[in-house]
């Protein structure tokens, strides 16, 4: 035990001696081989003392370090830091601590160090010497760099989150596609510090207007919704070349297009456009909502920033950081959703405006009477509000007929007039209208180029006319109602207005639908009206024959509402033996049935005249045969015969108002006893006889002249009597006119037949 203890003690003593020796070591050795670098400089930085440790770190002997300056040992950044921070600090506060500097070794490699230094001053405070210690700090600097890198990444990520937050907030307030495009373009551009940015959107295009007559498929087009800082030539290249397929192909994923050899080989125009825009890369970001591809966001990455600072960044070869890619993907999706929202909002607003317009149009056209007025109203509605040129072709039994060709600008109306003038109505329709009619569906042509015009015109003269119109868009919509093709509505927009949109076309279609309904109704009404006219014309009483020894005047006025003929009639026929047969009648009602009944009644009466029956006999026979005739209405009638040489008059009445005889300025109703109306249960007719003196006038009429809604029959008869006496001397013709003017209002509820016979004096 003790030996062991003694030997331990001895060993402890030996260690102590060794330690003492080390502790008493040469201070020079301690300086030279200290675990840090030492150096001393003059105030101007000239190194006057350096230890071995630092020399070995530097890889050069002391003599090659002495007389150089501390600054000369440093990297460029270190030199600047030395001059701008370390040296000033030493002067101002006499010491610096833990300044990070990179020392450059003899072999060019860099040794990260931390430097502490003190400035020694003379009693007057003037600098004499600077002593500095340098500690190797490779691991610490690496650690700090990692922290710095992480810090930077966090900052970038925070900046991205901020961008996205701003985007979300701003997009929430964007109610139009233009607003959305503005936000997305501006935010993306500033987030990626792009030279320029643009948003291209997919819009449905019109049917092919490139001369491909069968290409009715609606193509998608790319249009620039917003562009900021990208040259038009580049956008044009992407949006229109190959129908925008390039941009859409690119938008399959987030792509970076670099104008390299490969692009020059495959898409030389695009590569050239990128280079002339001095862009290093074009970033293409798909903009979509769910699976719907709505467009592309383009970012042009250049080499110089937006600020007025010199940019040190090397061309990045279009490589985006993962963070950038994430940001852009999210931006594309956010933009897509916002676009859909904005479109919905815009569509709602547009729909409201469209509905208001169509409602207005419907009211206007519903109030139109007949085809002509409908066409007028249509032209007022369509141009210039919807289009510049409005043409309407109607199908008739003789082929298509152009009933409307109007230009919204009166100064250019002559252009469409010229087109009408050379194209006779019976010729085949212009191409768009022809195809719309043939296929029974809308034809929409946008941006018709000259080659297309040449291919579709019917005549070189038409070509000149159409060219002069400078059309940008044509829509032809067939007018179909009740399964019938009524015609074609063709609206065109010229270059000043720009092409129609899909929404415009929809409005045109709806307007055409309204026109179809109104036209169909108007045409049906006009057809009925024409038919009725023709039939009525055959039913109207013929003009009376000339009667020797008498002046005969007749008038027939239909009621002012409804059809233009009623159930009233008159008839004058000369019979053998200087007799004339006179009749006036009134079938109940004043519609087409009354007119038909009247026609039949008159025919039967004429047939009876063959036997020259007495007036009472006429009534008896008509009464007797009434059931056989199957006439639907009852009638009143007055039949008379007049012996021309003597003026002997026989009259019989079937429920009809009495005739008026005007003699020497006095008018008297003849006391003809009326028997029952025709069609009522038969009763024998009573006949009255008397003489019409020379110069006297016999007036026969129907109750429309004496009866009105406001006065009874007796009052009417009295008024007629007074009026007849007042105008007794004017002659048969004028008498009729005067009586009608005085007694028949402008609005008649009933028909009027009036017959005046004046016996020559």
């Amino acid at each position, binding site marked *: 035990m003790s030996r062991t203890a003694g030997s331990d003690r001895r060993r402890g003593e030996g260690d102590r001696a060794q330690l003492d020796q080390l502790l008493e070591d040469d201070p020079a050795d301690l300086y030279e081989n200290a675990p840090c670098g030492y150096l001393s400089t003059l*105030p*101007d*930085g000239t190194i006057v003392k350096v230890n071995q440790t630092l020399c070995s770190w530097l890889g050069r002997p002391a003599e090659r370090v002495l007389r150089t300056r501390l*600054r000369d040992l440093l*990297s*460029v*950044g*270190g*030199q*600047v*830091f030395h*001059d*701008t*921070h370390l*040296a*000033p*600090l030493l*002067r*101002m*506060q006499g*010491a*610096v*601590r*833990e*300044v*990070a500097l*990179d020392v450059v070794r003899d072999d060019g490699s860099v040794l990260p160090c931390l430097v502490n230094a003190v400035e020694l001053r003379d009693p007057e405070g003037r600098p004499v010497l600077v002593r500095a210690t340098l500690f190797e700090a490779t691991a610490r*600097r690496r650690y*700090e*760099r990692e922290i*710095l890198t992480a810090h930077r990444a966090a900052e970038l990520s925070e900046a991205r989150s901020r961008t996205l937050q701003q985007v979300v907030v701003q997009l929430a307030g964007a109610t139009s596609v233009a607003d959305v495009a503005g936000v997305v373009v501006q935010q993306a551009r500033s987030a990626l510090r792009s030279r320029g940015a643009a948003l291209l959107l997919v819009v449905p295009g019109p049917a092919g207007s490139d001369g491909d007559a069968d290409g009715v498929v609606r193509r998608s087009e790319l249009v620039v919704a917003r562009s900021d800082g990208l040259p038009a030539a580049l956008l044009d290249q992407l949006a229109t070349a190959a129908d925008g397929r390039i941009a859409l192909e690119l938008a399959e994923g987030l792509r970076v297009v670099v104008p390299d050899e490969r692009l020059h080989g495959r898409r030389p125009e695009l590569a050239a456009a990128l280079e002339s825009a001095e862009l290093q890369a074009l970033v293409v970001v798909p903009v979509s909502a769910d699976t719907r591809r709505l467009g592309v966001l383009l970012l042009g990455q250049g080499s110089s920033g937006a*600020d*007025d*600072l*010199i*940019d*040190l960044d090397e061309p990045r070869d279009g490589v985006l950081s993962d963070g950038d890619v994430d940001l852009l993907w999210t931006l594309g999706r956010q933009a897509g959703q916002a676009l859909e929202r904005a479109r919905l909002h815009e569509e709602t607003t547009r729909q409201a405006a469209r509905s208001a317009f169509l409602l207005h149009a419907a009211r206007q056209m519903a109030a139109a009477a007949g085809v002509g007025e409908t066409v007028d109203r249509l032209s007022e509605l369509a141009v210039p509000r919807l289009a510049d040129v409005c043409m309407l072709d109607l199908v008739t039994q003789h082929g298509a007929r152009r009933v409307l060709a109007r230009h919204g600008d009166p100064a250019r109306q002559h252009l469409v007039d010229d087109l009408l003038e050379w194209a006779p109505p019976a010729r085949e329709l212009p191409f768009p209208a022809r195809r719309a009619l043939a296929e029974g569906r809308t034809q929409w042509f946008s941006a018709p180029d000259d080659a297309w015009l040449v291919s579709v015109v019917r005549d070189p003269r038409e070509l000149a006319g159409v060219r002069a119109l400078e059309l940008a868009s044509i829509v032809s919509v067939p007018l179909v109602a009740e399964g019938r093709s009524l015609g074609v509505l063709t609206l065109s927009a010229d270059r000043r207005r720009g092409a129609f949109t899909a929404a415009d076309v929809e409005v045109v279609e709806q307007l055409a639908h309204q026109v179809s309904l109104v036209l169909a109704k108007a045409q049906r009404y006009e057809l009925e009206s024409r038919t009725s006219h023709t039939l009525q014309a055959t039913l109207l009483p013929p003009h009376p024959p000339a009667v020797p020894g008498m002046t005969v005047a007749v008038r027939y006025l239909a009621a002012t509402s409804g059809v233009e003929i009623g159930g009233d009639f008159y008839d004058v026929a000369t019979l053998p033996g200087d007799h004339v047969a006179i009749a006036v009648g009134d079938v109940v009602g004043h519609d087409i049935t009354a007119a038909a009944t009247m026609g039949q009644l008159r025919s039967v009466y004429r047939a009876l005249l063959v036997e020259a029956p007495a007036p009472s006999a006429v009534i008896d026979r008509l009464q007797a045969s009434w059931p056989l005739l199957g006439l639907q209405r009852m009638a009143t009638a007055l039949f008379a015969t007049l012996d021309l040489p003597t003026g002997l008059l026989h009259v019989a009445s079937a429920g009809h108002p009495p005739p008026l005889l005007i003699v020497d300025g006095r008018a008297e109703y003849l006391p003809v006893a009326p028997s029952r109306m025709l069609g009522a249960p038969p009763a024998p007719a009573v006949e009255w006889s008397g003489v019409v003196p020379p110069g006297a006038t016999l007036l026969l009429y129907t109750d429309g002249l004496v009866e009105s809604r406001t006065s009874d029959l007796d009052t009417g008869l009295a008024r007629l009597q007074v009026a007849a006496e007042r105008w007794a001397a004017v002659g048969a013709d004028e008498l009729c006119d005067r009586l009608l003017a005085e007694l028949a209002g402008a609005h008649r509820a009933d028909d009027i037949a009036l017959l005046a016979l004046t016996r020559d004096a």
Partner: protein
Amino acid sequence: MVFAHGYGCDQNMWRFITPDFEVDHQVVTFDHVGFGHSDLSAYDPVKYNSLHGYAADVVEVMRDLELTDAVFVGHSVSAMIGVLAHAQAPELFGALVMVGPSARYVDDGDYVGGFSRAQIKDLLDNLDANHLGWSAAIAPVIMGNPDRPELAAELTNSFCRTDPDVARQFARVSFLSDNRADLPGVDVPTLVLQCSEDVIAPETAGRYVHEHIPGSTFTQLSATGHCPHLSAPEETTAAIRAWT
């Protein structure tokens, strides 16, 4: 006389110079926003992304103090800030003293600014690695205790402390600006003080400034480095006095 500190530290850099001029001049020194005891909350990364932002501050300070016919002494990048401030409000300025100026630090064709693009990149990286700055989070605590100045005094390297973000942007703005086109607009007497062996603003840069400011005076100092007002205050003061 208005003294504007340059890239690096704060107005303390003028401490060996100003006592001499205070004898016969009204002397104004200040810290650019983001430096020294300036109000960090006034820092706006957009405004200060260009030297014009700093120049606007100089004009504001001078107008506020109702200075006219002032001698503006600008060190390093502040020499150019003086040129821009003069362009904004010529009526305030009587003369410019440019200490170690450079209108552009990066070489450009025949122009020798002293740094290649790669060197400037290395420089900016290196400046990032130093931690003389305090964080913006700590600054208000120090600034908000004016009754306890020892708080600030306790901090090492305090004269060159800057918020790291401000320092980084100021370095970028200082070393990446190109203000050569602004020089011919200077129409007040101008003195260019050129140091010897200045790696930051080499003689070619100083000569360029002199040659492009009409009627300017060029004085070569024997002082070495970039801060003659610290390393050789007597020579610097004498050169300014000799000119005025």
